[in-house]
């Protein structure tokens, strides 16, 4: 679909703010977005997709539902490569930069942050404001601020790396301010993560006085931290004497703080703040969300369609462990492969499958194939590529997840509904899904097993135990009971219907309430 073919509208009901997900990237969150949009055909959605660079994405992976009336895409790191344009020196607005200084001072204070400086600045970022991206990039004020902060805080010697980290990190904010200014009129905002999309949500909510709904699947800040730990591209220029291995490189710390603050700004503006499960809600509160705005809405699956698959199952338990997911490091596929080696030594008839695309991280996928080959798994271990759930589920004995990070994985619920127990690592909501959350839920029994992360031995032993027919049948029954009682899609839709109804009927905030965002000069006029 070319950009000209994107649907465009003059206004819409709900703007979905999507960072690096639907409709360009497939995965759990994207499926969920697809599910939600299709569940509310009477709501007209406007989609705002935020990506890193245009070249990082191919064609959309999902067909757009009919009630998507508007789609726009923005790429935050596309304008970084401008070269050879002659730039004239400029002074920069002293008052605006004084407020930038105040905001950064507020960031450094311990305890409850005072975000009033942000409110005063947010509108100045927009086109026509007093803090333009040109000022950020080229003004003497900005230079003074950047070099002063480098001198005061930076523990990494390389100034050029510090300088570019600051630039690359902040530049998207101005693009987002422009997007916020130019977005078509909508009645409510719904962001699916904090981060840049959440920041855009905060900008829009503050400047237009419309409600912002935040649904967090993973915890953006935490996932970003994992990315940042793993990324090689963040430079660390300390030499062997300066380096303390317990101390993160300064630039990593900068990125982490940056995303934490984007998150705070989003939490500050959003109501309600929805988590998928209890642990994440607590984490949101710890990260600065006001507890009274938070609650959980778990994912749900289509019980009716999936329960029909139970009839297709063979009488015996297939000794097949299947990991349904993308072949990427966060899924820690290698632990699954190692566990299969241990399992096969004890149960030669067992099989391991991986059902999911390998194109996201081809290097990692190749390593996984080499590992499986190196461990001599032969035809007992298969990379199936993308598979249809409905055809796959009846053939497998256990759905497994060896991830080092998960939110509320749909595949476990889909497995339950189709009569397949789960074996998962103790991440995200997996413990809640397998053993139950409250008293009542726990009474339903264990729908599988949970083991520690990166522990192939424990993983293999749990699989052997779960494949014992008695254990397996008990787990299957517990899974079916749990998914039907707590995780049916209609329950999720009902909850979101309430959320949307409240947001769409909310009175548009009066001008007085939106006032903090207006120009301070005019504010004085208004008294």
């Amino acid at each position, binding site marked *: 679909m070319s950009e000209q073919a994107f649907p465009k509208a003059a206004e819409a009901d709900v703007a979905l703010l999507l960072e690096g997900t639907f409709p360009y990237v497939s995965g759990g969150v994207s499926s969920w977005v697809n599910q939600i949009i299709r569940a509310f055909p009477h709501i007209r959605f406007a989609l705002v997709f935020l990506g890193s660079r245009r070249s990082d994405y191919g064609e959309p992976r999902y067909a757009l539902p009919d009630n998507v009336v508007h789609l726009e895409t923005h790429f935050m790191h596309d304008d970084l490569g401008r070269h050879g344009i002659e730039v004239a020196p400029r002074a920069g607005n002293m008052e605006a930069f004084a407020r930038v200084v105040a905001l950064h001072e507020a960031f450094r204070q311990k305890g409850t942050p005072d975000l009033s400086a942000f409110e005063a600045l947010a509108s100045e970022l927009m086109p026509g404001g007093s803090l333009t991206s040109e000022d950020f990039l080229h003004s*003497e004020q900005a230079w003074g601020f950047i*070099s002063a902060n480098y001198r005061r805080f930076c523990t990494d010697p390389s100034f050029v790396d510090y*300088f570019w980290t600051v630039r690359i990190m902040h530049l998207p904010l101005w693009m987002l301010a422009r997007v916020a200014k130019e977005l078509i009129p909508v009645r409510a905002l719904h962001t699916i993560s904090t981060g840049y999309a959440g920041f855009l949500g905060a900008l829009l909510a503050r400047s237009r006085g419309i409600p912002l709904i935040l649904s967090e699947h993973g915890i953006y800040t935490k996932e970003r931290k994992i990315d940042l730990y793993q990324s090689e591209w963040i430079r660390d220029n300390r030499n062997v004497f300066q380096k303390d291995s317990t101390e993160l490189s300064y630039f990593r710390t900068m990125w982490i703080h940056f995303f934490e603050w984007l998150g705070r700004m989003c939490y500050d503006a959003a109501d309600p703040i929805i988590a998928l499960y209890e642990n994440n809600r607590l984490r949101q509160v710890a990260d600065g969300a006001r507890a009274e705005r938070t609650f959980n809405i778990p994912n749900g699956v289509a019980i009716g369609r999936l329960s029909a698959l139970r009839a297709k199952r063979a009488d015996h338990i297939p000794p097949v462990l299947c990991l349904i997911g993308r072949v990427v490091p966060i899924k820690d596929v290698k632990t699954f492969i190692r566990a299969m080696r241990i399992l096969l030594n004890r149960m030669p008839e067992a099989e391991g499958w991986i059902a999911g695309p390998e194109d996201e991280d081809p290097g990692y996928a190749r390593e996984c194939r080499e590992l499986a080959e190196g461990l001599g798994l032969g035809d007992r271990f298969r990379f199936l590529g993308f598979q249809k759930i409905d055809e796959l589920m009846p053939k497998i004995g256990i759905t497994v997840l060896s991830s080092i990070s998960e939110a509320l994985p749909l595949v476990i619920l889909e497995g339950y509904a189709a009569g397949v127990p789960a074996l998962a690592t103790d991440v995200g909501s997996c413990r809640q899904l397998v053993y139950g959350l409250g008293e009542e839920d726990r009474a339903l029994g264990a729908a599988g097993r949970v083991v520690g992360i990166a522990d192939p031995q424990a993983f293999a032993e749990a699989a052997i135990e779960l494949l014992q027919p008695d254990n397996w049948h008990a787990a299957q029954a517990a899974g079916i009971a749990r998914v039907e009682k707590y995780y049916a899609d209609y329950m999720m839709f009902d909850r979101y219907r309430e959320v949307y109804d409240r947001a769409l009927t909310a009175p548009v905030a009066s001008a007085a309430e939106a006032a903090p965002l207006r120009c301070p000069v005019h504010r004085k006029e208004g008294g």
Partner: protein
Amino acid sequence: MAGIGFELRKLLRKDTLLGLLQAYAYAGVIGSGPWILSIVGILAIGLLSHAVVVPGVQITQFQVSVTWLIASSLILTGAVQLAFTRFISDRLFEHRDELVFSGLNGVLMLTALVAGGLGVVLALTLFSGMGVVYRLLMLSGFVLLCCIWITTILLSGLKRYGAIVALYAGGYAVVVVGALLARPWGLEGLLAGFVLGQFLLFFGMWLLVVWHFRSPQFVSFEFTRIETLYPSLMAIGFFYNLGVWADKFIFWFFPDTSSAIIGPLRASVIYDLPVFMAYLFIIPGMAVFLVRIETDFVEYYDRFYDAVRSGGSLAYIETMRDEMVYAIRQGLLEIAKIQTLALLVALVAGPAALRALGISELYLSLFYIQTVGASLQVGLLALLNVFFYLDQRRIVLMLTLCFALANFLLTLVTLRLGAGWYGYGYCAATLLTLVLGLYLLDHKLDHLEYETFMLQ
């Protein structure tokens, strides 16, 4: 002059008095450049043939003809010299060495065409009263000189300083000897000797390029493509040369100070010789300038940009900036010191020199003030060089424009004020441009880190 620093540092690293002397001598010869050699050559012919060429007026006619050739060819090719050198160094950076030879041939062909065309037109109009042989010799001399300036600046861009100086020495030896041998034929004989020497000089330099940059392609006009043209460099070269000659032209055309020498060519006996002599006194300043700027300054300049690119701390970057400033300050200070010494020598030797040349001692003060002006011009050159390193072409253009304009206007003013003021126009113009340049440099260096990082 990039690259000369390497040779100089090699000599300085010997850390001996001899090494030091060698470095300064080397820098002096190279820095003062080919056109000082030309002046020496012309003066030498004049002095040597003074007694033997009859009538004596023919020597003056010869000298004036050659001076006009040099001035006009320098201004005409000024537009090409810097821009073409930049084109070649960009191509060398891309490892397209074959374009040195074919590109040079291309630019020489174009130059010869333009200079030749212009020359023919002038020969048929302004010079129509002159003899055919004279006109032919002048035409070929003009085209040859244009080609020589371009080849010279190319070779100095390629760091062949030693070869340039040797070829110039050889070329002008032929000019002097040839002129002396051909003096029975009068003006035409002297000119023929000049043209022969220039031809050998040009041919030698051209062979040097052929030798080092053999190329399957003989000629290329790639430098005329719009994206490889540097209009600012073309303008800089043109205005700088115009500025250097502006006061001389005015003196040549002002009735009180000049006389018609041959055909349309005029000269100012009272102005020209003191001026050319004054230029001889800047050789020590040029030497100091090259040694200081091309070694100390460039060293910290390199370290500054290395630190910027490869992750130095801001404190280190600033230290390197400060060292650059210090090197420039030291360089200018040393130029000032050595030129003060040169000025003292001029004061002492001046009266005798003018007497020997048969010029009234009334013009001593003109000679002194010209020496001051020329000394200031060394400082200006040093400054322009620093700006070129910082790639501040816009500032250089502004300064050269200012220099040309100021020299033109102020010289006109001094002509009105009277003979006592002669020379002050040129001197004030260089001083004004130098002060303006220093002010701009001060500001530029103050904001160097800001501009390096924030204006990208």
